[in-house]
């Protein structure tokens, strides 16, 4: 083999595979309610009585099927939050804040964006979206039956 230093060759590959995911009976109903009526429903476990959000057809703790739909408010409290400033391939454009929000009437927390406030400077932003902030859903006009039918939850105090 030749002595001279050879370049390391890199081969590009791309996984661009379209997927079609089933939402199932439970989530289909949940998304339908969001789309048609801008309503959010949790589902109650008949055994431990938790109202689960997002709703699933069974309770993993009790290992039984869930039964009753329970309306919850589109308002709640930020339970934990982070704010993104790095940009990554195929991911949302920063800055964006992800929070787990405890909606009134639910026993679990829902993941969503907190928005409608200026997130560009984290020093200011962390005060606007901090844990304990009350937030309310901002709905899209054109809804398709997805989590993103809510654009984000906006701090209630924000103008």
């Amino acid at each position: 083999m030749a002595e001279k230093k050879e370049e390391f060759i890199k081969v590009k590959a791309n996984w661009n595979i379209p997927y079609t995911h089933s939402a199932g009976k439970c989530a289909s109903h949940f998304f339908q309610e969001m789309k048609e009526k801008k309503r959010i429903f949790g589902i109650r476990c008949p055994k431990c009585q938790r109202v689960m959000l997002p709703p699933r057809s069974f309770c993993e703790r009790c290992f039984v099927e869930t039964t009753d739909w329970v309306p919850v408010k589109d308002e709640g409290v930020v339970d934990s939050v982070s704010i993104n400033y790095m940009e990554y391939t195929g991911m949302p454009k920063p800055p964006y804040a992800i929070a787990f929000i405890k909606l009134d009437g639910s026993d679990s927390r829902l993941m969503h964006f907190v928005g409608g406030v200026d997130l560009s400077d984290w020093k200011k932003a962390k005060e606007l979206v901090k844990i304990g902030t009350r937030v309310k859903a901002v709905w899209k006009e054109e809804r398709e039956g997805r989590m993103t039918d809510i654009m984000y939850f906006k701090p209630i105090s924000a103008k």
Partner: protein
Amino acid sequence: MRRVAIIGVGQTKFRTRRDDATHEELTFEGVSRALEDAALSISQIESFVYGTMDPFDGVNSPDKWCVGGAGAVGKPYIKISTGGTTGLTTGIAAYHQVASGAFDIAMAVCTQRVGVGDDAQSILNTCVCPIYERDAGAGAITVGAQQASRHMFKYGSTDYQRALVSVDAHKNALNNPYAHIQVDVTPEDVMNSRMIEWPLRLLECCPRSDGACAVIFASEEQAKKLCPKPAWVWGEASIIDSYWWGERPDLADWDILSLAGRRLFKMAGIENPIKEIDVAELYAPFTSQTLLELEALGFCGKGESGPQIEKGVFKMDGEMAVNPSGGVLCTNPIGATGLVRLVEACLQVTGKAEKRQVPDAEVALAHAWGGTMQLHALMIVGKHKR
């Protein structure tokens, strides 16, 4: 090493898509069926092994999502992925967890939704080396087609013999309520169906299926307490060949499977496979593979599988029943498929196979292959202890 038994099995109905359930809900369904079969509650399962083949489901590591559906929150949980063998290596992993004495009751769970992706072949293509081989566009069908053409060339097997494999599988599937494809086909139907990848035609190729299944393993002591009619594990083996297809000595002979088979039969104390084994559930998504597998495992001599199939040796009422479930040709939820073979083997030796029961079945073999002809997994179960 301890003796281990299988005390419960469960499977969902397999379909092209299960739009009525999410991934974890499908897992819940499969697990619930196995618990019902064993008359156990989820709290009695000490450890879990979850098997699936990323990324058919469109989720990276869906085991993390499905933990609730498996009933494993707060428990030991391990994820296995070994390609097409995944289902069976997941079962083998749960078996080792009990055989070692680490746990008394362990469950193997597999869910796969091949129907989620638009194109399973393009995913299968990604197991092929992107630097040297991927651009050639090889998918799993390529494996079956290469083996078919080579077997025809070397041993003179025929399109008609392969068509009979498809006819028998479809007839068996009609008696299996869980099977995905349930239609009666004639040899003419098979030989006139659309050419997919020469020499394989449409009715010689498996469907893409969604579904889940689960198998519960227990120590001898627990099995005696909990289950009146368990299936006893006699032996298991897994094996891996080279990554590079070009290194296989001859694509007409599955030598690596022969080697794994010899190890398996030694462990299980089998001396004359066709005489001692009553049922074989072989992983053959393409008709050609049944031929190669029968020969590699010594159920007939090299080149004899075709004529033996013509004689009906491997039919339901033949010398050894092959794929009473209808096999992979009629149902293929890829990463769960190997475990479905084990489910069927257990149902047969415990006399629970209903309309497709092989009379007096006492010893059954489950098999799976994966990669590009590269991996195999095997297990033998018996009605009696060995």
